[in-house]
């Protein structure tokens, strides 16, 4: 049974229980995205913002894409908007050498997932955002470019540099 589609329809008609089921299904991935894109200390607050925003915007969901795709895109928009209000955004898009140098330090156990996440967190903001959106979330370069206000070529370039940096880290 396409239970999620039914829950979306029910939630659109104001059914809070249906929306809670959608929340339970999607919160791990949304929280993971927020935690990796921003300071983990803000993850809970911003995850709440994402679902409140989703509830408010649910009437605009027309089922043209999967609900999860729609929700994750909305989450990215909330995250990017919050980044601006949090301020202190670092220079987003760095030259190759800076990226490669920024991922430094030897991991005690390079194959361990937590260390890989730590390596991702050390990437410059722009490369990290593109890497997370493309390789973790599955967005296409055209979508990423639109969301981040860059051209697809920049997205491709940042992704490659991020991967190269992480590859170097895994080699240690």
């Amino acid at each position, binding site marked *: *049974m*396409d*239970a999620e*589609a*039914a829950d*979306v*329809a*029910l939630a*659109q*008609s104001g*059914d*809070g*229980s249906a*929306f*809670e089921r959608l*929340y*339970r299904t999607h*919160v*791990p*991935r949304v*929280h*993971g995205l927020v935690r990796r894109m921003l300071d983990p200390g803000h*993850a*809970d607050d911003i*995850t*709440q913002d994402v*679902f*409140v925003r989703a*509830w*408010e915007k649910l*009437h605009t969901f*027309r*089922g043209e894409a999967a609900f999860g795709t729609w929700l994750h895109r909305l989450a990215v928009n909330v995250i990017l908007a919050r980044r601006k209000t949090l301020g202190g955004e670092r220079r987003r898009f760095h030259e*190759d050498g800076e990226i490669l140098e920024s991922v430094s330090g030897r991991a005690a156990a390079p194959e361990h*997932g937590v260390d*890989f*996440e730590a390596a991702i967190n050390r990437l410059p903001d722009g490369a990290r955002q593109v*890497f997370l959106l493309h*390789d*973790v979330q599955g967005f296409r*370069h055209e979508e990423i470019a639109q969301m981040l206000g860059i051209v697809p070529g920049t997205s*491709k370039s940042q*992704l*490659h540099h991020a*991967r*190269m940096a*992480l*590859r170097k880290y*895994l*080699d240690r």
Partner: protein
Amino acid sequence: MNDQWTDRLSEYLDDELDQPQRAALEAHLAGCEVCTQTLAELRRVVGRAQGLDDRPPATDLWPGIATRIGVSTDDLARRRVRRISFTVPQLIAASIVLVAASAGVVWMLSRQEPVSAPVTSVPSSQARPVKWVARADSSGDHAVEELRLALQEGQRAGRLSPITVRKIEHSLAVIDSAIAEARRALEVDPNSDYLNSHLADTMRLKMQFLREANRIATAQT
């Protein structure tokens, strides 16, 4: 390392090179161990990214969300308890009573003089239920098929009585009949607030019925 080939490895990995570029890179890879090794490592990085563990937050965020969107968690808890206590006869009876109670009003309204306002003048707030119905209809088709399979399986295994299955199917037919009646009435009076709301309510009832019936059928199979 930063030669013309290395910089194209990610695009190759993502299948974003055109055919001539791809062929040229593959020809290079056939003779370059460094690039072949780098490509394998990039592939590992992508695989690791796709395998990152997503965990729910340590604290349940739902109560805070429920408060902010105006949904009472107490109400939800009570509704969950009440839903679990549904039996098949209760479910069927509730569905039939709800549909029957409103069907008479639909019948009367469908025989009144139609309101001749042009469709283009309908405010979006009035048109919303019809759009919702279109989406719910598609969702309902999946749900009906899933329920049909669950009922078949339950009956085949002998754990769901034929009488129960017939009653569920009959209830569904009653709801579908009410939906068809509401749609016919809407063709006569497309701007009726009541008819639009009634159709949306009946579709919502159908979705709830399908979910409950499916849960019951699955629980018994």
